[in-house]
């Protein structure tokens, strides 16, 4: 059949089940935008291409399938980059469609030309520059397959404008997918899993570290069932928050530089650590790398063989999908239970480090208490997106997540500006649950214009801004490591956020006492529309539950 390249792109997107494309037009991707308007797919115009990428990423985390975004060549494409790298680091499936200058102009430094496939090589799972319009259906199908399967990730396709506009005679039957260099994993090795079972039985003080891989392989209920039987203490990485119900007695919080004290203390006592679906990134092992290298035997289970042995050499490596591994492991440990002494010791440590939260009125809202109250009121009947900084760590440690898919955060890449657009993406993906965007006044201002997207497309997001008039995380960092020389962290010049919300026609309120929290949350939840709640927060409130905790000193300021 005769079709233009752009028509074929859109038709293949439809065949892959795409409902929404987040994007921003320009000359080079205009052919796609044009054809989208004749399709079943909705195009959501964002305010910056970076927003489009984060929205696709948030959309993907909720729908468990690749989110799609588009931008034009040159600056449009480079604006996507932060969003692509964010998705790559957290293994989020995404298909990115960029326009490119016409093929005869490629390499000539044409207007708005950039080598986007070259630029994104290090942080895409794969990318394509289309050179023949007849390849379009194959490439788009491959892109979805690669993005969604195995360890998911972003795939970028760069479409030269002339190919999008040109007509091609496409064969009626589609080519079958056959990517020689991309084969999916089979079942995990049985002998290796037997070794894991033996090692767990032989250990005195075993622990499990649950990572994002447990979430991606949809193994949360299997994981919990496994832990119900074995009773092994569990901690998680940031991407694994919610794999265990946060209030479960066997859950000890997040491990790492901003994790819970209990988890960081326990890892240094464990003699065996079973890592499921985690890269063992430097932030996760910040307080544990010595223990992991010298004291504690490490079992590393991951779908990506390259993650095993990349950062820490394991005692037993297992390559496999977590769901498959747990289903094989569970029968072998049917009669196993962790020793009572270890269980008791772990519980004692957890109790000892339990933190008391300030709940009385002090002139500012305690963010930790706010998150506890928000959780008490909406619990797992909401999606919670965070930005990066103190707001993220507070949310991770004080919102009691009961399911991991409800928590959207930029873990590996630590991208400020992620949360608001990701929340818009999550809210586009489903209408059932409210979506909260928890932010600081720094990160809010990174992608703040996306409030326009929210209004234009009627996408409700409940925005919460912890206002302390500074970049709180860096402020804390400068307290700990730069002798309280607070530099470049003050946000003087910020607008009145409530007036700004008014200007967008978004309902809003401002509170500064703990006793106002419940009323403010109720007010925010009243209607199914966007809302901005600004909370005055003590600038010296720390993230605090890590091993380093000391109260920040007041050395004001200048």
């Amino acid at each position: 059949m005769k079709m233009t390249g752009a028509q074929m792109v859109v038709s293949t997107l439809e065949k892959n089940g795409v409902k929404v494309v987040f994007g921003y037009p320009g000359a080079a991707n205009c052919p796609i935008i044009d054809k989208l308007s004749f399709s079943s797919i909705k195009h959501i115009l964002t305010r910056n291409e970076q927003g489009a990428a984060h929205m696709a990423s948030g959309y993907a985390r909720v729908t468990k399938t690749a989110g799609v975004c588009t931008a034009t060549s040159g600056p449009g494409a480079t604006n996507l980059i932060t969003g692509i790298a964010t998705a790559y680091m957290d293994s989020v499936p995404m298909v990115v469609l960029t326009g490119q200058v016409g093929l005869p102009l490629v390499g000539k430094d044409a207007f708005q030309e950039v080598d986007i496939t070259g630029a994104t090589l290090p942080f895409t799972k794969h990318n394509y520059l289309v050179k023949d319009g007849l390849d379009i259906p194959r490439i788009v199908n491959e892109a979805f397959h690669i993005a969604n399967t195995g360890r998911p990730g972003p795939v970028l396709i760069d479409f030269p404008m002339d190919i999008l506009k040109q007509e091609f005679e496409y064969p009626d039957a589609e080519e079958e997918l056959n990517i020689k260099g991309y084969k999916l994993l089979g079942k995990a090795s049985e002998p290796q899993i037997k070794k894991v079972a033996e090692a767990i039985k032989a250990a005195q003080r075993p622990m499990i570290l649950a990572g994002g891989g447990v979430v991606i392989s949809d193994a949360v209920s299997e994981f919990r069932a496994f832990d119900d039987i074995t009773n092994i203490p569990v901690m998680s990485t940031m991407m694994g928050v919610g794999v265990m119900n946060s209030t479960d007695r066997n859950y000890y919080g997040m491990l790492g530089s901003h994790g819970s004290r209990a988890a960081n203390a326990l890892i240094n006592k464990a003699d065996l650590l079973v890592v499921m679906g985690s890269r063992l990134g430097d932030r996760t092992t910040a307080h544990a790398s010595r223990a992991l290298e010298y004291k504690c035997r490490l079992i590393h289970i991951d779908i990506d063989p390259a993650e095993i042995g990349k950062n820490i050499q394991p005692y037993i490596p297992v390559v496999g999908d977590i769901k498959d591994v747990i289903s094989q492991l569970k029968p072998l440990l049917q009669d196993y239970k962790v020793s009572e002494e270890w269980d008791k010791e772990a519980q004692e440590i957890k109790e000892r480090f339990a933190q008391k939260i300030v709940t009385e009125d002090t002139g500012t809202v305690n963010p930790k208490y706010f998150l506890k109250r928000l959780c008490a009121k909406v619990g797992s009947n909401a999606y919670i997106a965070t930005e990066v900084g103190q707001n993220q760590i507070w949310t991770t440690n004080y919102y009691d997540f009961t399911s991991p898919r409800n928590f959207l955060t930029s873990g590996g890449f630590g991208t400020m500006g992620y949360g608001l657009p990701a929340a818009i993406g999550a809210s586009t993906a489903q209408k059932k649950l409210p979506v909260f965007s928890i932010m600081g006044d720094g990160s809010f201002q990174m992608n703040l214009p996306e409030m326009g997207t929210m209004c234009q497309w009627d996408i409700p997001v409940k925005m919460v801004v912890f206002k302390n008039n500074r970049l709180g995380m860096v402020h804390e960092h400068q307290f700990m490591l730069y002798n309280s020389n607070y530099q470049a962290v003050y946000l003087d010049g910020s607008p009145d956020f409530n007036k700004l919300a008014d200007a967008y026609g978004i309902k809003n309120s401002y509170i500064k006492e703990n006793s106002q929290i419940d009323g403010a949350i109720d007010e925010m939840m009243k209607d199914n529309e966007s809302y901005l709640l600004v909370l005055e927060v003590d600038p010296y409130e720390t993230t605090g539950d890590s091993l380093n905790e000391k109260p920040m000193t007041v050395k004001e300021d200048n």
Partner: protein
Amino acid sequence: MERYTLSVLVENRAGVLSRVVGLFSRRGFNIESLSVGPTQDERISRITIEVIGDELLLEQISKQLSKLIDVIKIKTLRSSEIVKRGLVLVKVKVTPKTRSEVMEITNVFRANIVDISTSTLVIELTGGNGKLNAFLEMIEPYGIEEIAKTGMTALERGTNTLKLDK
């Protein structure tokens, strides 16, 4: 630290080499030598890469390379089980007096003289790293004008092959 040889089958497409090389540089691996060319199946190229490191590094390189979609197959070749050759072209200064000496050395190494002028010889030699280096060492005192050296390329001895799965 040891020298390893990796034989990598890749899609013969534009940009594939930059994916492979880019991976080495951004992961902080060093390439000792590299050669690339199409195989008997023109859709497939073979890249031969020499690296110096330990087993762990080699394993990590090999796993990271496998993740590239355009990489089809990888094999680590043991030096005892392969034939490995590189090519060097070297332009040497000669005088009427030294020309025959250089030609004698060339003969000993079974190298070929491929160009001659009144004051220079261009000599071609294939062989493993050891042989090439030994030859260059012998020639060096006469005055080397220029060297052009390829990376090593290698095949397994005997009936073993690195082929696509059917």
